[in-house]
């Protein structure tokens, strides 16, 4: 199981702060597609992805135990 953290608008739209997903192996891109199919939320395509608190590119492979987070456009400051 892969733990996926959600924030801000994405958290509100899904009603979840975190998702436990059966995602055996694949890239960030693969994960985006699986979530997009499941939730029909464009945000899973457009938000940035962080793995273990670092931004990750779409071709990055997700390993067992990785903490994945979707980072919608930020607005701090």
């Amino acid at each position: 199981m892969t733990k996926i953290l959600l924030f801000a608008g994405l958290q509100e739209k899904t009603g979840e702060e975190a998702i436990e997903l059966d995602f055996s192996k694949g890239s960030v891109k693969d994960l985006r597609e699986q979530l997009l199919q499941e939730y029909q939320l464009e945000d899973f395509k457009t938000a940035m992805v962080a793995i273990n608190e670092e931004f990750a590119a779409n071709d990055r492979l997700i390993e067992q135990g990785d903490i994945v987070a979707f980072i919608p456009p930020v607005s701090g400051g």
Partner: protein
Amino acid sequence: MSKRFWITETPISIPEVVDIVSRREAGAINTFIGTVREFTKGKRTLYLEYQAYVPMAEKKLAQIGEEIKEKWPDAETAISHRIGHLDIKDIAVVIAVSTPHRADSYDASRYAIERIKEIVPIWKKEHWEDGEEWIGDQKETKAYPKGYPEESDQL
């Protein structure tokens, strides 16, 4: 407080942030204080709600400090960002940068706030009289070909 870059749910003390960078080598300390403004483009804000991915946000604030060190080796930086419910006039962020000479303190401080708005996972939700919305500053202004912001992407 031994941290130089931190997220907090309680009001930020400006002197506390300034003290972290104050030192014998510094002749200038620039601070940027971001406060909650009542009106934006004619629309009245009642209050804001800030959320952060706290451990990553603190890491990214620290990364901004390192980026500043690379660009301005004599600079020392401290940044605190508040989350939770903020009323009009409340302080959301305090940046303090000390340098030997004043020009660098302005440039580095400006760099810090631009980078915060770009790479730090903090979000604000505007609460207006007639609705509410999570704001995404980058939405209309930026595109990331690699899917995430690179260092050269600063505004």
